[in-house]
């Protein structure tokens, strides 16, 4: 996991926060900043071969994601996908995709600095998300590799389950949230998890939705 929050050229929106945990390892919350993030717009017929060549990943079907050791590809809508890669790989990915997609009616946009990623893991992760979301988060309703664009409190973002419920340490979820909403959502998640002994983080500005 990338714990870097400051580099000479950029500073993550949660650089002032440290990872937080509830007692007995029931819940962990942290930020994984600076994942490479690229939005791919276009028809799957055009995007599929190019993405496969650059990342080795197949395009996911609706509401799903595909992943390798290094990359993850999220379905966002019938003609839109979000490609995640390792830190500092966005320029190389953009160049490689530009070569493969040359002349086609598609669009690639580097949104690396648009979202940051919150990582919520542990046996209580689902219950914590339930305090903020209207999604069906039962293990049968939201499964590994599933993707949903939704709202968490007042912040909208993308949720994807990256680790199975059966794994040691429980399931893990990535939440992609806009930079300006990241501090709010970080604090809101600690607030939602206070029943599990999570210490509460207070937002730098503004206030939380009381739940």
């Amino acid at each position, binding site marked *: 996991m990338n714990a870097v929050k400051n580099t000479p050229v950029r500073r993550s929106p949660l650089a002032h926060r440290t990872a937080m945990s509830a007692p007995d390892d029931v819940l962990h919350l942290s930020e994984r900043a600076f994942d490479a993030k690229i939005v791919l717009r276009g028809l799957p017929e055009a995007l599929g071969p190019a993405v496969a060549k650059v990342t080795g990943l197949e395009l996911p079907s*609706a*509401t799903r994601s595909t992943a390798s050791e290094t990359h993850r590809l999220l379905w*966002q*809508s*019938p003609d*839109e996908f979000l490609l995640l890669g390792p830190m500092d790989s966005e320029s190389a990915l953009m160049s490689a995709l530009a070569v493969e997609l040359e002349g086609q009616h598609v669009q690639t946009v580097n949104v690396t600095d648009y979202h940051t990623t919150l990582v919520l893991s542990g046996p209580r992760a689902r219950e914590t998300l339930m305090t903020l979301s*209207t*999604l*069906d988060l039962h293990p049968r309703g939201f499964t590994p590799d599933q993707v*949903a*664009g*939704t*709202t968490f409190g007042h912040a*909208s973002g993308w949720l994807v389950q990256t680790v199975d419920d059966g794994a040691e340490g429980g399931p893990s979820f990535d939440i992609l949230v806009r930079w300006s909403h990241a501090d709010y959502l970080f604090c809101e998640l600690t607030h939602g998890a206070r029943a599990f002994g999570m210490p509460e983080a207070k937002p730098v500005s503004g206030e939380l939705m009381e739940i």
Partner: protein
Amino acid sequence: MFVIDCPNCGSRDQSEFTYAGEAHIARPTESENMTDAEWAEFVFMRTNTKGLFAERWWHATGCRKFFNMLRNTATDEIHAVYRIGEKPPKVTANLPLTPAGESSIGSGNDAVKIMTRDEENAS
């Protein structure tokens, strides 16, 4: 609040969606030749049906696509969800259109506000 079946994402809570007005209103092709009255008709005038109504919805936080819906505006029963560009499917809705058996024309409030002369005098 109700649950909406997005054609792309599946069942989601209404809070993820934005209402986008009456469906199947085509934008005029030669608007430069229209009178102000005709333009106003296109921009502002809607049928505001009580009962089975074709309307557009936008999945704002999910796939961010528009789609059409046939909804009974009196009972909030959703009869069909279909894609932009498709014709509304044939559905059967039971009339009268509200659980209370109000008239299918006019506002529900008026229908329940009808009182007998004796009741009016008493209040």
